[in-house]
């Protein structure tokens, strides 16, 4: 009896070591999460270029933001990106996932190839597509030209540039979403399809009435992840277009970066970061509500 009590005591004492295990993270959290969060709240009320002392300006950063056409341009560009990127990604990813979700030869090989752009640096992908999209020499225009179409001004026309980046981003990321849809498809119980077969439902009806509703949680996830990705768009326009032509590819992140590092407007850059972060949370919440409310 007393031996058992001793054991329990030893265990309890051992469990107190928890503090030592979490201490490094607590320090990390205070420095790199809590402090930046608090400091961003201070920064948004100040004008500051890091060199001279901070200057309290109240809500002027927000006044400036709401009368800054470049901010609205960057926000609008992000939505242009999302409107093309999200549907394109879902259609492409779901098609490949449905095809791969059957007993087909080389299944693992295909999945591995589709996933390849996901693991490679965005810089590499952007360098590749810069050449694919080149107006005069690019592979895409050569192909279009050889089958009798006229060349497309992929990156040089303000109307085409952001959609071009959205297509490129889809090519880079769709591998993740194929895999996510595959997981979702494999989680649908086979019995549902069997009973639908008995009821005489055709393949199309099964897809619309069973597969799509059952994939709803995957949809919510994919839309949220692509939205966060769209708001974080940086290296693609930075390398490909520098935000041009005519600001048409100026993304939120690129605008924040420019404000902070070209103009030294730390307070304003922090304000932009704050507003874009709020926008992300709002949009993701809204999307979730809409998709989950979809009649099934």
């Amino acid at each position: 009896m007393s031996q058992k009590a001793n054991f329990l005591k030893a265990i309890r004492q051992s469990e107190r070591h928890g503090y030592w295990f979490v201490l490094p993270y607590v320090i990390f959290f205070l420095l790199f999460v809590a402090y930046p969060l608090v400091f961003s709240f201070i920064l948004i009320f100040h004008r500051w270029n890091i060199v001279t002392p901070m200057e309290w300006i109240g809500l002027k950063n927000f006044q400036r933001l709401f009368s800054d056409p470049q901010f609205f341009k960057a926000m609008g560009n992000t939505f242009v990106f999302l409107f093309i990127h999200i549907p394109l990604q879902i259609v492409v990813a779901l098609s490949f996932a449905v095809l791969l979700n059957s007993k087909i030869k080389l299944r693992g090989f295909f999945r591995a190839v589709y996933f390849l752009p996901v693991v490679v640096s965005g810089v590499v992908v952007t360098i590749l597509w810069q050449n694919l999209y080149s107006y005069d020499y690019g592979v895409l225009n050569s192909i279009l030209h050889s089958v009798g179409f006229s060349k497309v001004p992929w990156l040089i026309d303000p109307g085409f540039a952001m959609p071009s980046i959205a297509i490129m981003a889809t090519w880079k990321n769709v591998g993740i979403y194929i895999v996510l849809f595959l997981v979702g498809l494999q989680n649908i119980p086979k019995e549902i399809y069997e009973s639908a077969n008995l009821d005489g439902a055709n393949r199309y009806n099964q897809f619309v009435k069973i597969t799509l509703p059952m994939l709803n949680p995957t949809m919510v996830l994919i839309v949220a992840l692509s939205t966060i990705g769209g708001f974080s768009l940086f290296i693609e326009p930075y390398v490909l277009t520098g935000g041009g032509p005519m600001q048409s590819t100026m993304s939120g992140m690129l605008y924040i970066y420019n404000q902070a590092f070209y103009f030294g407007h730390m307070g304003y850059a922090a304000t932009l970061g704050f507003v874009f972060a709020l926008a992300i949370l709002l949009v993701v919440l809204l999307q979730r509500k809409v998709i989950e409310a979809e009649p099934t």
Partner: protein
Amino acid sequence: MIRSFSKFSFLIIGALIFAYPFLWMLAGSVKPELEINELGLWSSNISLHSYEQVLTKIPIARAFLNSMIVSLSTTVSVVLFGSMVGYALAKLRFFGSKLLYVLILFTMMIPFQITLIPQYILMVKLGLTDTYASLIAPTMMSAFSIVVFRQFFMSLPQALIDAARIDGCSEPGILFRLIWPLSRPVIVTVAILTFMASWNDVLWPLMVVRERTLMTMPQLVTIFVIGGEAESQLGMQLAAATLLALPVVIAYAFFQRYFIEGMAYTGIKG
């Protein structure tokens, strides 16, 4: 029969769309400049000229070393501290552990846009810009890795750990000698995803490093491509891009399953 044939051709076309640009890059990096823009991948004049030029024009070997140092340190740190905190949250009882877990979940929800500029200012205040420390510090630990480790450790039987305690094993001993060997798949997954994210990150290095000899590889290649140094020589750009892609692609070739399943798991958890 016809149905599965058309399915198969669709998948093949897909594979071509995803693989061709990489093959074109590889071919272009060894082709003479004039032949690069051809659609075909073959050339009779293959040479390593573009690679030689890249190596002499920019300190890319040094950048490779920098990236290796940064990515490996980040990876070791994330695995070490992630598993420590994950273990404490899963198997140790201490005051405040619930609160800490809630804070960690909260951390995962914060868009990085909000903390990015203040983190940069912190680096400036600490005098760390243009050092390896500034590249490593903000990613030394990750909420995601803690959650993944905690989840896995929760599934380990408590009796196993209590038995080790009764045998007089210390808590660090339990984690590193008993649990780590049992957790190899989780460790490999976290390590691979962390290494990949660190290797491919370019925004943060662009912010905190200006010194050319300290630049990471994606950063140096980015500056090289947009800064006009490549003098619109496509061969050099493609050679630089190939060198940048190579380490992750090699790792992917060996650990493909961990990459794919790890990313899927992260997506589902996050």
